[in-house]
């Protein structure tokens, strides 16, 4: 009987040999012997000392076990039984499968990638739309992506093969590129990007001029970005190139103006600048009104808002129905711009939005002006009782002789008449005190056109008006019947009146009779008169920083007067370009610059150099001159 011991089976297979006939006939002797005993289980007894703790329990168990063994024989509890298991045949089975293709994928996770994924459910809608458009060209899209990968994998790709491939693809994707381009061009974000890019480019182009405007040191010969402010010392460490020192070194140089740049574009070329105003909140935003002042050339007017960030194209362009004669920004709502026009209408625009919003117009108002609005002014009225918010009112003076105060009601503008400029009989003349006027009995209008006005800087109920006849009236907003004072000196239309912001009670007036007069509020005769050329003086402004400096513009030149140095001649004279007349003037509030508008539509920025900065003695100069005038009767006019 063969004993089937599984672990020995291998040996038997290896010893198979070929069986021949001779071998079969052989007598083989088989010896059977007893193998050694194979011990399958051997558990030796455990010895426990009699003195141990559980000795008694173990003895008890031993006794129990001995009893079980004794009772085993012939007991029904235990029955002998034998079993045999059948071992089935082993069967080999093999399975083969396709090799699993392994692909390596890697992803770089960045912090912002995770952030985008969390945010993306909100942005899915916006993403879907351009995707739909691009589904029209699936094959082309795949090609381009593969092309891009190829280019990337080449690395610093100047190999001609890759680049020529790309060229072909770039050329071949004409259709796809067109539609993409259209999409991009229509988006507002692109417009914003273009704006920023244009400003950066212009920043580079105009950098020295803008640096001079901001009174930063100018480094010549090197490109420096505007944002880098280098404070210059006399010993510059490493930078080559010269530094233009701002202060005079040894000898005082004569005062002069230097032309920095000009705001002009093709829209404004050919139009005459009629008025300019700074924004009250952002002192770098300039509004310029264009309009022909002679009635022969009636072009519709234009208002442009310029910023120094882009001197070649205005930030906002507003087309108006008729020529613009004056404009002013509001104090309380800095984005509101009030524009007065030649046909007498007054419109308030909101310059904040790109698609310009006309806030309100005076076209429906019943008692609006019928003649050109020569000046517009927003004035803040101090209310000592109520808190911080100052009330603001809009005033206009027009050629129909009325001064009106406007307010917004029912989506329109409405006005109340503040004063009528009645004509005064020429022969009557009293010194000081209130006058009683007599209306002339002519058939024509008894009102004389008002050309300019200005409110007292400290007391906003007092204002001065200049008229066509050359008279200057001081009026109060509480008294609409009578003038408080009349100042007579000019015999031609008074073009501009302006209070001095630094010296109290002093104002300047300029007129077409070629003179500029300096007045003190309580003197009916001018303190000083200035004239330098025989041309009508169009505009005049005080310097905001220096009490004795003012600028004047007549048709041919820009004059800067400094009362400290000379009262006979202007300190600086800048002639206009040939063929061009200068029409308006504005001082920059924070730097030493003046802006001059001319009849060709250009607003040129000039920087004042080397003006002495002694500003405290302004009042003294005026007072001294006044005292001198009383002593001597020497008129300068």
């Amino acid at each position, binding site marked *: 009987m063969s004993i089937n011991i599984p672990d020995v089976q291998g040996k038997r297979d290896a010893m198979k040999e070929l069986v021949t006939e001779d071998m079969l006939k052989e007598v083989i002797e088989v010896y059977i012997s007893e193998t050694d005993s194979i011990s399958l289980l051997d558990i030796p007894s455990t010895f426990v000392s009699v003195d141990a703790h559980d000795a008694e329990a173990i003895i008890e168990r031993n006794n129990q076990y001995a009893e079980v063994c004794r009772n085993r024989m012939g007991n029904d509890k235990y029955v002998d039984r034998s079993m045999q298991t059948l071992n089935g045949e082993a069967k080999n089975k093999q399975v083969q499968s396709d090799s699993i293709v392994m692909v390596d994928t890697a992803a770089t996770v960045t912090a912002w990638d995770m952030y*985008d994924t969390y945010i993306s459910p909100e942005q899915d809608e916006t993403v879907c739309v*351009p995707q739909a458009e691009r589904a029209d060209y699936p094959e082309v899209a795949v090609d381009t992506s593969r092309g891009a990968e190829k280019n990337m994998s080449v690395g610093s790709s100047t190999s001609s093969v890759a*680049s020529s491939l790309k*060229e072909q693809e770039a050329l071949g994707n004409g259709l796809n590129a067109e539609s993409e381009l259209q999409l*991009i061009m229509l988006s507002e974000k*692109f*417009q914003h990007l273009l*704006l920023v890019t244009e400003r950066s*480019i212009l920043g580079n182009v105009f950098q020295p001029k803008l640096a001079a405007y901001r009174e930063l040191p100018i480094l010549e010969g090197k490109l420096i*970005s505007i944002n880098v402010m280098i404070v210059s010392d006399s010993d510059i460490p490493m930078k080559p190139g010269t530094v233009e020192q701002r202060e005079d070194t040894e000898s005082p140089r004569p005062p002069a103006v230097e032309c920095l740049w000009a705001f002009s574009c093709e829209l404004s070329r050919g139009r005459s600048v009629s008025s300019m105003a700074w924004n009250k909140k952002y002192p770098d935003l300039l509004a310029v009104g264009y309009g022909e002042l002679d009635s022969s050339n009636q072009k519709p007017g234009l208002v442009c808002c310029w910023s120094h960030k882009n001197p070649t194209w205005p930030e906002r362009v507003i087309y108006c129905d008729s020529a613009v004669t004056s404009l002013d920004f509001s104090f309380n709502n800095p984005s509101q711009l009030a524009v007065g026009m030649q046909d007498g209408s007054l419109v308030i625009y909101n310059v904040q939005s790109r698609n310009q919003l006309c806030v309100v117009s005076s076209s429906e108002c019943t008692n609006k002006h019928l003649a050109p609005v020569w000046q517009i002014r927003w004035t803040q009225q101090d209310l000592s009782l109520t808190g911080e918010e100052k009330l603001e009112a809009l005033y206009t003076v027009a050629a129909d002789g009325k001064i009106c105060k406007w307010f917004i009601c029912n989506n329109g503008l409405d006005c109340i008449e503040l004063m009528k400029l009645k004509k005064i009989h020429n022969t009557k003349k009293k010194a000081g005190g209130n006058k009683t006027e007599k209306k002339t009995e002519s058939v024509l209008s008894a009102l004389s056109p008002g050309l300019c006005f200005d409110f007292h800087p400290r007391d906003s109920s007092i204002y001065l008006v200049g008229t066509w006849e050359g008279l200057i009236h001081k009026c109060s907003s509480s008294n609409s019947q009578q003038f408080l004072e009349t100042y007579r000196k000019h015999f031609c239309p008074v073009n501009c009146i302006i209070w001095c912001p630094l010296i109290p009670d002093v104002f300047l007036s300029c007129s077409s009779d070629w003179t500029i007069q300096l007045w003190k509020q309580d003197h009916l005769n001018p303190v000083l008169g200035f004239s330098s050329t025989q041309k009508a003086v169009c505009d005049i402004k005080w310097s905001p920083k220096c009490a004795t400096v003012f600028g004047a513009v007549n048709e041919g030149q820009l004059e800067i007067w400094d009362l400290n140095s000379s009262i006979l001649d202007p300190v600086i004279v800048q002639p206009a370009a040939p063929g061009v007349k200068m029409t308006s003037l504005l001082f920059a509030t924070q730097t030493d610059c003046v802006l001059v508008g001319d009849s060709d539509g250009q607003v040129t920025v000039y920087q004042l150099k080397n003006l002495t900065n002694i500003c405290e003695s302004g009042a003294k100069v005026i007072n001294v001159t006044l005292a001198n005038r009383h002593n001597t009767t020497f008129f300068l006019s």
Partner: protein
Amino acid sequence: MLIEETLKRIQSQKGVQGIIIVNSEGIPIKTTLDNSSTVQYAGLIHQLVMKARSTVRDIDPQNDLTFLRVRSKKNEIMIAPDKDYFLIVIQNPSD
């Protein structure tokens, strides 16, 4: 159209050598330079913009790149990136 006018104005500014608009895959879709320069600029700057944007956003994921200027000896490259495209302007201010 306003955008066309602005593009024309930029192109006529002093020293501007070229303008390229590149889509999000790095393919130039509008250019004023010759083809080989365009392709070169587009490919190289695409990588630079990706890197710059990734840098900015890694530091603060709520931040994003708005403008990139590369000043070199001879000229300046200004890049205005957006989600789907970016705009490249090359200027030589001393022209």
